[in-house]
C-alpha cells in the first residue's frame, strides 16, 4: 500500500469509503508522521491526538455501516485562527494565553459535520499579520522546501505558513487557512500547493479570530485543485451567525474541475508586470498563457490601472479594522492579563504591550492613527473609495474576459531574515494577491513550475464575484498542463 499520508484528499476519501484502509489507520499514520516531523517543521502548535483517534473511531463505525459524510475519516489540520471547542486557540498570539473556546467556528463545524478528523492546530503569523509566519508566538515553521544545494531555512509564506507546511510535508490531507491580503495564496505558491480564497461572504467568519473584517475570508490549502474544490464546497455555507455571510447556495465546485476551458476569455493585466520582477516569474506567466491558449482559451490584454494603489489602500484598511477588532484584547475577560502598576489603565496598557508582538503593535498604532480624530476622511474613507476604483477596474476588465491570469507572488520563497527590517519590503509580497481581497473577488493559486533553484512557483487565477467555478476550471487546466510533480527532498 502506498504511504497513506501521501494520498490526495479525494483519493483518501475514496479509500476510506472502499475500506481499503480505516480512518484509524490513516489518522495514526498522520499522527506518527507529525510525531517524527513536527519538531523540525513546527507546523502544528497543538496536536490533538486523542481527539483525532476518537473522531476516527466514530468515522470507522459510520463507514462500517456504509454511512458517513463527504470527508468521513479524513484527517485535516486547522489554522490556529479558527475557534475549536475545547482546543486551545490563540491566533499564535501571546495575548490569548491559553484561551480555549467553548464554541466552534462555522467553517470547522462544517468540516466535522462531514466526518473530517482534526489532527491539531496549525502555526500562523500572529493574528494573521505577516507574509513569512515569523510573527508567531511559537516561532516560524520551516518550509519542507529548500534551495538546491542549500541548507538555509526558507519561509513557507504567511500568514498561513503552518497550513502550507503541513500540507506540503504530508502532515495532513488538507488544511483550513484564511486570507486577508494573500495569506492563503502566497503560502500555496511558496510550497507547491493549491489555495483558494472565495468571494467575500461565501465562508462564514463566525468563530474566526478577526483581523480585518471587510477583507478576511476562509479557504483551504490542499494538494490538488480537486481537493481544494472539495474542501471549499464544505467550508462555505450561508450562516445566520455572520451578517456578512452570503445567503446563496454553494455550487458544486468539484464538478467544475476538469471542465473544458475552450472558448473562455482569459485576461492578462499589464499592470501586474512590475519593476524588478524576476525573469523566471515572467516566463512562468507566459508559459501559463501558452498552456491556456493550447487548451482552447482566448487571451485578452486588459488593464487594471489602479493596481499600484492596492497595497497602500490595504495598509490603511487592514490596520484600521484591526485596531478596532483587537481592542477586545484587554486582559479582562479572556487571555493573559498583566497587571502593570495595578490600575485599570495600566492593566490594559501592560497586557497589550506584553501580549502583542512587534508587527501587531506596529499595525495597531498605524490603524489607531489613521482612525484618530481628523484623519478618518484623509485615510480610511479615501482608501475605501480607492477600493471602489479597484473593483471598478476589475468590473471593466471582466466585460472583456471571464477570468484573469497573473503570477501568484513576485518571487519564490525567501529565507528567514532575508527581507531585512523594512516592513514595506515585506508588505510588497502581497502585491499580486491583495487586489482580490480589496475587491472581494475569488482567487486561486496553483503550482505551475519551479525556479532555477528548484523552488515552486505559482500562478493565480482571479474570477468574477461568485464565479469560483472559473477559478477552478482554469486552475485545473493549468494543473493538468503543468503536471507539477516536484516534491520537497526530505531533510527533516
Amino acid at each position, binding site marked *: 500500500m502506498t504511504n497513506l499520508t501521501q494520498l490526495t484528499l479525494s483519493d483518501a476519501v475514496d479509500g476510506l469509503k472502499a475500506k481499503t484502509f480505516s480512518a484509524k489507520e490513516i489518522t495514526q499514520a498522520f499522527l506518527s508522521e507529525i510525531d517524527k516531523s513536527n519538531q523540525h517543521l513546527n507546523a502544528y502548535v497543538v496536536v490533538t491526538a486523542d481527539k483525532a483517534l476518537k473522531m476516527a473511531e466514530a468515522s470507522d463505525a459510520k463507514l462500517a455501516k456504509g454511512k458517513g459524510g463527504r470527508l468521513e475519516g479524513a484527517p485535516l489540520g486547522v489554522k490556529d485562527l479558527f475557534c475549536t471547542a475545547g482546543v486551545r486557540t490563540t491566533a499564535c498570539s501571546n495575548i490569548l494565553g491559553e484561551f480555549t473556546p*467553548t464554541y466552534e467556528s462555522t467553517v470547522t463545524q462544517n468540516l466535522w459535520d462531514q466526518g473530517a478528523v482534526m489532527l491539531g492546530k496549525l502555526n500562523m503569523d500572529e493574528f494573521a499579520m505577516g507574509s513569512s509566519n515569523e510573527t508567531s508566538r511559537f516561532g516560524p515553521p520551516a518550509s519542507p522546501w529548500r534551495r538546491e544545494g542549500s541548507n538555509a531555512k526558507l519561509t513557507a509564506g504567511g500568514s498561513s505558513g503552518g497550513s502550507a507546511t503541513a500540507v506540503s510535508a504530508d502532515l495532513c490531507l488538507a488544511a483550513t487557512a484564511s486570507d486577508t491580503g494573500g495569506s492563503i495564496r502566497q503560502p500555496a505558491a511558496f510550497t507547491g500547493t493549491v489555495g483558494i480564497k472565495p*468571494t467575500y461572504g461565501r465562508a462564514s467568519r463566525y468563530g474566526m479570530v478577526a483581523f480585518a473584517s471587510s477583507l478576511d475570508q476562509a479557504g483551504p490549502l490542499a494538494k490538488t485543485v480537486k481537493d481544494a474544490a472539495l474542501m471549499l464546497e464544505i467550508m462555505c455555507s450561508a450562516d445566520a451567525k455572520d451578517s456578512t455571510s452570503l445567503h446563496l447556495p454553494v455550487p458544486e465546485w468539484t464538478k467544475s474541475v476538469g471542465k473544458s476551458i475552450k472558448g473562455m476569455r482569459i485576461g492578462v493585466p499589464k499592470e501586474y508586470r512590475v519593476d524588478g520582477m524576476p525573469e523566471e516569474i515572467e516566463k512562468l506567466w507566459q508559459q501559463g498563457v501558452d498552456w491556456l491558449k493550447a487548451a482552447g482559451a482566448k487571451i485578452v490584454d486588459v488593464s487594471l490601472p489602479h493596481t499600484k*494603489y492596492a497595497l497602500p489602500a490595504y495598509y490603511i484598511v487592514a490596520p484600521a479594522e484591526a485596531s478596532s477588532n483587537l*481592542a477586545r484584547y484587554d486582559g479582562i475577560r479572556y487571555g493573559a*492579563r498583566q497587571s502593570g502598576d495595578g490600575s485599570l489603565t495600566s492593566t*490594559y496598557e501592560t497586557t497589550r504591550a506584553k501580549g*502583542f508582538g512587534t508587527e501587531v503593535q506596529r499595525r495597531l498604532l498605524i490603524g489607531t492613527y489613521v482612525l484618530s480624530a481628523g484623519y478618518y476622511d484623509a485615510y480610511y474613507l479615501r482608501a475605501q473609495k480607492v477600493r471602489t476604483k479597484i473593483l471598478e477596474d476589475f468590473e471593466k476588465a471582466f466585460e472583456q474576459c471571464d477570468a484573469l491570469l497573473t503570477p501568484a507572488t513576485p518571487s519564490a520563497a525567501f529565507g528567514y531574515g532575508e527581507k531585512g527590517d523594512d516592513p514595506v519590503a515585506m508588505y510588497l509580497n502581497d502585491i499580486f494577491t491583495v487586489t482580490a481581497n480589496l475587491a472581494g473577488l475569488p482567487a486561486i493559486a496553483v503550482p505551475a513550475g519551479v525556479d532555477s533553484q528548484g523552488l515552486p512557483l505559482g500562478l493565480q487565477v482571479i474570477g468574477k464575484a461568485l464565479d469560483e467555478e472559473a477559478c477552478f476550471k482554469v486552475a485545473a487546466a493549468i494543473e493538468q498542463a503543468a503536471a507539477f510533480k516536484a516534491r520537497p527532498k526530505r531533510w527533516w
Partner: protein
Amino acid sequence: MSVDKNTVRKVARLARIAVPEERLGPLAGELNGILAWIEQLNEVDVDGVEAMTTPVAMTLPMREDVVTDGNIRDQVLANAPRSEDGFFVVPKVVE
C-alpha cells in the same frame, strides 16, 4: 503629515499599548516610512466615488427579535484571567 514622538505617545495611549520612552523615536520613524508610502493614494481622484462596501449587492439580513442565546455564564467566564462568584474580577476602578 509627519509623525513625531509626541504623536506616537498619544496614539499609543489611544491604542492602550504601553510604549517605553526609548521606543517612541524608532516607532515614529517606522510609522513615517509606512505613512509616506501610503501617501501615494492622494494621487487618485476619488471625487464623487462611493466608499466600497461589498462586491456582491446584498441587504443586511433580518431575523425575528427573539432571544437566541444566553444562560451560559460558566462558558462566558471559562477563560477569564480572574473570576469569583460568577463575576469577572477587575482592578479597583472606584475609590
